[in-house]
């Protein structure tokens, strides 16, 4: 199932669905990379609220995505990771590295706004 991407001001918001195959994820990666350029987006929020499993493939792909978006001048914030998913990720040994995280969409937007007020275009 294709992940919908919403444009909101300078931001792109991708809301990942419960059923996320590797193909869906790779396709999301490609579309986000492309749209960040097209819309000159300053930041991307990836909302994982309904995602029930974050495995090593998903983590690696999201980390790589954040990195390539940063090279294109956009910050990435991952929001909505559920407590149980976070727990499983750390048990497995997965980390998001330097990718910014926030509790939910609202917090993610707040985080980005705060960063912009401070004058930096990057998160953390």
């Amino acid at each position, binding site marked *: 199932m294709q992940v919908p991407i919403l444009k909101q001001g300078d931001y792109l918001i991708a809301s990942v669905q419960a059923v996320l*195959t590797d*193909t869906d994820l790779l396709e999301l990666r490609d579309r986000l990379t492309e749209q960040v350029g097209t819309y000159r987006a300053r930041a991307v929020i990836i909302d994982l609220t309904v995602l029930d499993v974050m495995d090593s493939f998903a983590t690696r792909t999201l980390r790589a995505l954040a990195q390539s978006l940063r090279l294109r001048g956009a910050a990435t914030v991952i929001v909505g990771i559920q407590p149980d998913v976070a727990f499983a990720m750390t048990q497995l040994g997965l980390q998001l590295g330097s990718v910014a995280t926030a509790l939910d969409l609202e917090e993610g937007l707040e985080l980005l706004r705060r960063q912009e007020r401070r004058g930096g275009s990057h998160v953390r």
Partner: protein
Amino acid sequence: MSDDLRLPIKSDADVVTARQQGRELAARLGFGECELTLIATAISEVARNIVEYAGRGEVVLSLTDVNNSPGIIVVARDEGPGIPNLELALRDGYSTHGSLGLGLPGARRLMDEFEIVSEVGKGTTVTMKKWLPRHTMRFPLSPRR
């Protein structure tokens, strides 16, 4: 147990199906949300390895009740290239494909029991078990009161 659930694995969509089915089956046994996520994540890892390294194989899910301790058994089986060095493959960070190398060691940490048999040229079988905690103490999602 005759109600084994055999799931053919040959694409990334099958990986999703396997972990969903695993979660559902484990939920029927009474596992809590947190454990269900651990189980589903472990299944995702071993099923993905099948797609990635063997091309195809199967995941068999079953319930067990040995000595009155109920649990779920996950068997991931393929007839792919096999793993030449298991010790290495189970090490955190070891990957032949430039990946994170956390799939096998991670799945092992997520489950209670983990066993892997592999023969080069013959295939790989991963057997994982998770037991239902005896004193299933559940914390509600929100704090008490």
